[in-house]
């Protein structure tokens, strides 16, 4: 058991380490990617500038170093399982960054990323269901095997504009951290800090106008680590509530195209670009439904305005997650009962 003073000290240490590594390595990595010609066009801006991609390796370096040092400080095997899940998800995303893979590739291979959590037993046997915990030792395994691919792809699918994925993860990490403090344990809180502060550091380069894009390696890393922290921190339902706008985006997309496909495989785009580079919703009925298309349904917006609205929705769902935490806490303490 880590003492309170050590939690504060270790927390500051791993947060600062992750933030500083990513903040200071990223500019050099941007230069490296530019030099190697690893760039893609930013289609939503005048002149369609080239933006280097992917930022996943920088994020991985910062998080891996911080988590390994944390492991030597608190010796919790959960760190290894979360780290392995994160690394496997990164590799899957990196393969997709290097070579365009079919739509089924990411969701199916991400099941592999969930295996370390199951094998190393980082999950509990109880699922927190707001009003009480449910003892589901067998059902928990398929839940883990499906949660990692779902959250990984959910964060991947929301990364459609500058800074959205990192900003979204930063906002939705706050209720997750509070939930982990209340229902999980302090070790998981310490494990989550490198992800939050790494995302804050990377956001400085990923925000509008982006100097670097995350790529699939970055988004799958963010989503899979987020999901593994939900599982290790007994906060699955709270996390899903915080992620509702992104979950809704994936759900809208999947239920309108009726199959698992890459966004680039879609023939009819959900949004189109106006001559003034504002974006407007497609009028084509065959275009997939997405969160952005719904945001644009009442008229065109600039990229920056859309990003702000996605963050407002993330804040709203995070508030609902906070309310859920309060309800769960009151039930847990026996302050209210039905």
């Amino acid at each position: 058991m880590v003492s309170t003073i050590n939690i504060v000290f270790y927390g500051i240490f791993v947060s600062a380490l992750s933030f500083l590594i990513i903040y200071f390595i990223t500019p050099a990595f941007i230069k490296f990617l530019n030099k190697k010609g690893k760039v893609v066009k930013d289609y939503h801006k005048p002149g369609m500038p080239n933006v280097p991609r992917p930022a996943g390796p920088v994020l991985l370096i910062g998080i891996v170093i911080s988590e390994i040092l944390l492991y030597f400080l608190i010796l919790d095997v959960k760190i290894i399982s979360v780290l392995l899940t994160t690394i496997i998800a990164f590799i899957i995303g990196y393969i997709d960054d290097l070579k365009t893979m079919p739509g089924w590739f990411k969701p199916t291979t991400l099941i592999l990323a969930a295996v370390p959590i199951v094998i190393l037993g980082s999950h509990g046997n109880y699922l927190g269901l707001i009003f009480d915990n449910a003892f589901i030792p067998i059902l928990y395994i398929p839940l883990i095997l499906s949660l990692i691919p779902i959250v990984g792809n959910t964060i991947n699918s929301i990364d459609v504009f500058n800074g959205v994925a990192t900003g979204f993860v930063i906002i939705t990490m706050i209720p997750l951290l509070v939930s982990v403090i209340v229902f999980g344990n302090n070790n998981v809180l310490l494990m989550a800090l490198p992800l939050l502060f790494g995302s804050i550091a990377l956001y400085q380069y990923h925000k509008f106008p982006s100097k670097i894009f995350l790529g699939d390696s970055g988004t799958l890393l963010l989503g899979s680590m987020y999901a593994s922290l939900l599982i290790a921190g007994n906060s699955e339902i709270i996390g899903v509530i915080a992620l509702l706008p992104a979950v809704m985006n994936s759900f809208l997309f999947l239920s309108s195209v009726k199959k698992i496909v890459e966004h680039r495989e879609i023939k009819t785009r959900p949004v189109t670009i106006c001559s003034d580079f504002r974006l407007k919703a497609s009028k084509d009925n065959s275009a997939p439904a997405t969160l952005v298309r719904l945001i644009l349904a009442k008229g065109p917006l600039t990229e920056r305005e859309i990003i702000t609205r996605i963050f407002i929705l993330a804040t709203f769902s995070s508030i609902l997650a906070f309310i859920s935490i309060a309800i769960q806490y009151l039930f847990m303490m026996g302050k209210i009962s039905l």
Partner: protein
Amino acid sequence: MRLFGLFMVIFIMWIMIMIVSYFLVFIIGPLHISLFNNTTDRLISSIVKATLAIGLVVVLILLLGNLKTKYLQKTLQRN
């Protein structure tokens, strides 16, 4: 309020999650089936509970699909 409709959809999704959680904890959780009055009953109860829980989640997904279709019709086609 451009985002009002989306706020409402997210809010309804949250309410649905809360209702499903309520059913799982207070209705399906306490279920106990007594058929043979031995340990087999526990296994049967668990299987029935798991089936009902999965069924409830499927119903939630279908309801969300329904909500999505109605919201899309209202928003995209009207605009």
